């Protein structure tokens, strides 16, 4: 009886929330990305909330994609979490084009661009350098970021598209000469993208 009374007392006491003040070691603000001025904040899960075991489902739910395949690109069956997949080759080498989508912002733009830089052997870039190789474009009537990363042997042309709580990744990765020779084709491809859009 006493135990129960004590528990009840604690129950009512513990619920009384109070304002508090505490000190913490100086915080370095997470690298903030300048939002393009046309993009208003949308309600999405914070970047670290992706629960990976459900990613396949998320990719399945993300809606379908429509596009026009540029001449010379060879379509490969999309598998797993890839929504579309192409190969292109010429005398100087080959490149692969992949389209993926993930929930949330997947760590933000800088993190993703640096991940791409890592894939072609470039060092991480700082936030201030971003404008040097990114430019805002429209994909499927939404603001996206076009990314151009030129490496010594390998290069990446890509785009990051935040789209109703998901982020779409369009990427061409391959031998530098092939990738650069296909830049117009990549831009035509991005221009042709149509995404299933239930939000409007």
């Amino acid at each position: 009886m006493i135990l129960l009374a004590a528990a009840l007392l604690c129950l009512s006491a513990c619920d009384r929330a109070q304002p508090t003040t505490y000190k913490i070691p100086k915080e370095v603000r997470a690298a903030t990305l300048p939002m393009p001025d046309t993009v208003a904040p949308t309600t999405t899960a914070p970047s670290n909330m992706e629960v990976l075991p459900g990613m396949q489902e998320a990719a399945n739910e993300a809606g379908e994609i429509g596009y026009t395949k540029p001449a010379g690109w060879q379509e490969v069956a999309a598998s797993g979490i890839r929504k579309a997949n192409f190969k292109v080759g010429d005398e100087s080498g080959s490149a692969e084009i992949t389209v993926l989508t993930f929930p949330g912002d997947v760590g933000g733009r800088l993190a993703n661009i640096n991940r791409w830089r890592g894939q072609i052997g470039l060092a991480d870039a700082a936030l201030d350098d971003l404008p040097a190789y990114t430019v805002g474009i429209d994909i499927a009537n939404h603001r996206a970021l076009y990314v151009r990363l030129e490496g010594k042997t390998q290069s990446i042309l890509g785009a990051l598209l935040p789209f109703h709580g998901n982020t779409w990744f369009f990427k061409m990765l391959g031998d530098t000469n092939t990738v650069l020779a296909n830049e117009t084709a990549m831009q035509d491809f991005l221009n042709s993208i149509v995404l299933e859009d239930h939000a409007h």
Partner: protein
Amino acid sequence: MMKTLIHFFSSLRLTVVLLGLSMMLIFFGTLAQVETGIWETQKIYFESFIAVWAYPKTWIAYDQLFWFRLPMPGGYLLGGMLLINLLAAHITRFKFTIKKSGLFLIHVGLILLLVSELMTDILSEESQMPVDEGSRSNFSQEYRNNELVLIDRSHADLDTVHSIPVSLLKAGKEVNVPDSPLSIRTVNYYPNAQIGRATDGKPVKSPATKGAAVKMGIVVTPAAVTYAENEINTATAYIEVLSPQGSLGTWLVSNVIDDRFPPQLVELGEKSWEIALRLKRHYYPFEIELVDFSHEKYPGTEIPFNFSSEIMVHHENSSKNQKALIYMNHPLRYEGLTFYQASFANDDRTSIFQVVRNPGWALPYISVLLMGAGMLIQFGMHFFKFLNKRTGV
């Protein structure tokens, strides 16, 4: 009168009725889980005194039976009554003898289990800590709870955080910001909302006069609270900040206006504070560094088979530094906290730990040990009695 009461509370009949009602509660709680999800069900059915079951929308003949409600005693009421029942029975009927020591231990174990369950409900805190490979974190966040913070970053080595729980954000209510000259008045608080420049929906008229809402023309459309497991409520509020000299303006704060945005500043003379509504944070006197995260999949599939995080704990007091490997069913217990491997993200470069503070975590183990020992004694005695009888024949 007293006698009837004691008789009632110590009766075995009450035990049977309570156990029957518990089964009913579990049954209907399980049904409700389909609609409201595990988190909400736990609150409504098990962490309550009375629960009311409603006829599910998805069942046949809902149109005729939509009014059907079934009230039943909740988990706290049943658990509390069982505890009283057990204690009362012990006090009035039980005489401690060596012969009955096994039974006694079983009952003590059971009482401890009931108490520990209540303690866990009341005292335990759960939050999540995402850490990127190669970087460190000294705080975790509660995904179901928010706080309004005003942060003074003027000191060279320290930041001062003034935190106000969202339960105090009630429209029209004023709250003093502790250890500061400021106070806040909540203009409105929305537990969940859509925010953006959306022209669809019915946004509320913005009372904001300062900050991101004004600069970016952000509006708020209140939304229903979600209880889904992988969704976060976009807690949002319009907050007026008051100084001794009067109002400093009204800001829109929301847990989606986070570090990705430039900080919203409240300025008073020389001083300034960052104002934000964010997922409730818990800071620790140590940092968790994620040294390496590894992730194995079943061959040919994307289904995770095992994932593990190699971490290094850097404590302010370096003698408490320690290395650890956290993986499924193998958490790290450190400074009264338990770190479980919960999830991962970001192309396998971010590991997410579930951080649990449960001061009563050892009690269920002790109670199970007590009950085990009790059973061993109880049945052992019977067994040896039986053996003796046989050899006696």
